[in-house]
């Protein structure tokens, strides 16, 4: 103890110290800025069309809290197991780990968490029933995502689909070697558990009238997608061995093994072309991909192209069909012209220009067209159509009261992931509509639906991270069936992560923009003004003693704190 009444110099300690508390000294009065816990969007989630809360889920996974992570991922996304397999994962292109050992294998994390949550126990608790009814036309990813979220919001939802089973393009357009159908079936079964009713084999406009749906339901969401196919526009394409790629793929995926010519040209460079070519290969046909631009302009997911090349599929690039050559009633060849690339067109890709006199024949017995799809919208009233698209605005609303739209037929984004995101967003809009609220000027971003508060106006890029805390750790190898084996089977090509691999990879995640209770703020606070909440996530800042020095903000490895001005 300090002697408070020293009589001699010896009674005074060698240097000043105080065993009294300094809590009395309210250093907080000095501040003109103060720190605030401020989760921001990590670059990955910013890029995620489906709106997955990647950083939070990976943090949970890194701690071994697999169930909590899986539950979070499935909270607004009914298809993590499917998307983990088919999404082109733009998140990984933006991952801040890119230069620090390689992007986190986020799609593998999604697949792992999706596979770990295929039981009803992982579904969110639905809100109390509202008594409102919603019809969803089209059981593809957009429609199911909308239905799932609206059912969880307490509404009664019925999905109408003209196919024998829901799933849309996930079922009819994606081969089993990418997405085994039992995974899709189990995810759809979970959606059914939330109360969504699926009316399959029901085509609106044929089996049920659109106006009748509008009368029976409080809101209608149109999510019919693209299922028609564009014509090639060359002589000879009416021959019976010229197939529509979407329809042919649908038949093969449904288990049909039609009798086909031994060698077929697959015209197109998108995902449908890749899926058709790789599926033909697996049923014993030799496909030749014919694409009018170069590899760089191909709209297909690059890894799908890589895998097709690895499987030995031949590509004729900078080549466009000019005529289907028929002899004795049979196709003998596809006559093509070589192309060269000119100036970029409105899509930003370089325009193909035919090279005069470059005609040559590719000997084939059949042709498959996969050059783009269109929607079939005849059932919709005129006012809700805009050419070959649904006339939907930024709020996902059509000019018809109570009719909303999402997915490819509305916005043409062209990926399952974007469709799921649009489904989540239209659900928020319709939920507000059903509650009688005024609609926002634009549908809120998917992240607005997250349970945890996050500052969606700010994205954390690598520049916002504190480099002192991160070192390069290499990305793991992702193992695939070897090309020779997979050419002859529809077995899944990519092997998923086991628990140990998934947790190890999650630990590589820098959890950008997201507080993970690393406690650096608490350790560095010179005023002992940061306190860990007991029994709850996060920290409290003691405003009486925080003097606004900003060290906690500076030392936060992941930019999950911000300094804000104190208004006097």
């Amino acid at each position, binding site marked *: 103890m300090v002697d408070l009444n020293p009589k001699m110099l010896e009674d005074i*300690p060698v240097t000043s*110290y*105080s065993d009294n508390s300094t809590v009395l000294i309210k250093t907080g009065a000095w501040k003109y800025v103060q720190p605030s816990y401020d989760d921001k969007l990590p670059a990955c989630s910013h890029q995620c069309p489906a709106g997955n809360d990647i950083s939070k889920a990976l943090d949970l996974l890194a701690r071994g809290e697999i169930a909590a992570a899986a539950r979070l991922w499935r909270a607004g996304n009914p298809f993590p197991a499917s998307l983990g397999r088919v999404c082109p994962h733009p998140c990984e292109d933006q991952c801040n780990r890119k230069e620090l050992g390689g992007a986190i294998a986020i799609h593998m994390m999604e697949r792992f968490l999706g596979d770990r949550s295929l039981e009803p126990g992982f579904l969110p608790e639905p809100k109390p029933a509202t008594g409102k009814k919603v019809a969803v036309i089209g059981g593809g990813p957009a429609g199911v995502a909308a239905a799932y979220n609206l059912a969880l919001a307490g509404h009664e939802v019925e999905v109408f689909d003209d196919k024998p089973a829901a799933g849309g393009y996930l079922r009819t357009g994606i081969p089993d070697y990418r997405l085994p159908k039992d995974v899709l079936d189990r995810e759809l079964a979970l959606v059914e558990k939330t109360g969504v009713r699926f009316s399959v084999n029901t085509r609106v406009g044929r089996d049920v009238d659109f106006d009748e749906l509008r009368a029976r339901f409080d809101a209608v969401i149109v999510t019919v997608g693209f299922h028609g196919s564009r014509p090639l526009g060359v002589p000879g394409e009416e021959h019976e061995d010229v197939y529509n790629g979407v329809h042919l793929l649908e038949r093969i995926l449904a288990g049909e093994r039609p009798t086909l010519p031994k060698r077929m040209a697959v015209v197109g460079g998108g995902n449908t072309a890749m899926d058709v070519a790789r599926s033909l290969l697996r049923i014993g046909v030799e496909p030749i991909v014919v694409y009018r631009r170069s590899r760089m302009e191909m709209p297909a997911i690059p890894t799908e192209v890589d895998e097709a090349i690895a499987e030995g599929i031949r590509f004729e690039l900078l080549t466009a069909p000019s005529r289907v050559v028929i002899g004795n009633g049979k196709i003998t060849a596809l006559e093509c012209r070589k192309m060269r690339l000119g100036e970029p067109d409105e899509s930003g890709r370089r325009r193909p220009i035919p090279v005069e006199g470059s005609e040559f024949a590719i000997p084939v017995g059949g042709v498959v067209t996969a050059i783009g799809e269109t929607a079939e919208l005849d059932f919709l009233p005129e006012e809700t159509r805009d050419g070959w698209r649904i006339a939907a605005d930024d709020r996902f609303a059509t000019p018809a009261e109570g009719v909303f739209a999402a997915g490819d037929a509305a916005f043409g984004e062209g990926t399952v992931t974007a469709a799921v995101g649009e489904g989540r967003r239209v659900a928020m809009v319709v939920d507000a509509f059903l509650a009688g609220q005024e609609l926002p000027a634009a549908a809120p971003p998917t992240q607005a639906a997250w349970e945890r508060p996050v500052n969606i106006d700010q994205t954390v890029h690598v520049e916002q991270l504190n480099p002192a805390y991160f070192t390069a750790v290499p990305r793991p190898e992702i193992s695939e069936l070897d090309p020779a084996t997979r050419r002859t089977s529809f077995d899944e090509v990519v092997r998923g992560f086991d628990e140990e691999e998934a947790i190890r990879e999650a630990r590589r995640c820098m959890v950008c923009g997201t507080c993970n209770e690393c406690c650096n703020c608490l350790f560095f606070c010179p005023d002992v003004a940061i306190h860990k909440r007991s029994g709850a996530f996060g920290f409290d800042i003691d405003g009486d003693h925080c003097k606004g020095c900003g060290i906690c903000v500076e030392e936060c490895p992941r930019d999950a704190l911000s300094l804000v001005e104190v208004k006097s």
Partner: protein
Amino acid sequence: MRMVIKGNGAVAHAVRLARPQVISAYPITPQTSIIEGIASMVAEGKIDAKFIKVESEHSALAGCIAAESAGARTFTATSAQGLALMHEVIHWAAGARLPIVLANVNRAMAPGWSIWTDQTDSLSQRDTGWMQVYCQSAQEVVDSVIQAYKVSEKVLMPTMVILDAFFLSHTYEDVEVPEPELVDGFLPPLDLPQKMDLEHPAALGNLVFPDRYMEFRRKMDLAHQVALGVWDEVGREWGELTGRPYGLVEQYRMDDAELVLVTAATTASTARVVIDALRDEGVAAGLLRLRVFRPFPSGLIRTILAGRKQVVILDRNCSFGHHGIFHQEIKSALYELSAGRQPEVHGMIVGLGGRDVKPEDIRGMLMGVWEGRITEPVTWWNVLDAESAETGAVAMG
């Protein structure tokens, strides 16, 4: 064990023998090889210490302050701008009574940018409460670093051990490096009377009101007074153990000297050659080398210089607007002498920014004073002036 090492290597070996627990340092020419040597020794397990790499000298000393407050023996080293950057916490270390040992390689302050020797950096820290020892050889560096820990830990004041840039820091010498057992017997482990204690939380360096502040400062000054005796005693004890005794100052051919040269650090070695030559020529010249500058041995210096005819003081520094700092200090020590015992005192400002101080320079100063050709109280030695140069300005290299 005899080794051929540089002054900087001598520091590193002495630090190894003193067994510090925390070393916190930032590199700066010409100090760098000190901490490189220590870092290697820590990496090789020759020193069982935590080596903290920091981003600045301020943090380097702050790291030592924190560790020493918790009761750990610490070390840091720096030079010139680095020492200046430490200044705020230099005061703190002394006021907190932490017996930290710091090696400072004397280097001129910028601008103009210079890496060569000059005493202005360490003398600018004169009034902070740190003890200062100026060394003349690598052997003295080894011996002084070890002694510095012992004295500092006895009186609870930090010490700067100071060596000239390059002339000492980078010059190889034959050095006797003591065995660890010898040093362990001489220097017991640190046991601070007041340190951080998890069982008894306290705020260190807290607010002190005017009714108490002076008492803490009085204690610092008393500690320096005690330290004069401790340096003397520890220097003697070291001599008994190693055969190399040290005092607060060193006297050379001083018994009957009438003309006395006062200097510090490596210039003293050069000066000895000149003193010997002058003695051969019949001039009663002697050398007084300053070693411990803080605490300042006023009484001892007064006694030594009383009754001498002439005193020439070399300053490798200048307090602008007054004169050399050693000159001021010695004059103030002589003030109490009676008029008849006061020597005639001349200050020489020499060798700034590493300029050579050659035997002929020292001879010129001493004989100039002895023969009455130099009469001014202060001379800037061998510097361009209005008469010796066309412009009067010092040319840039």
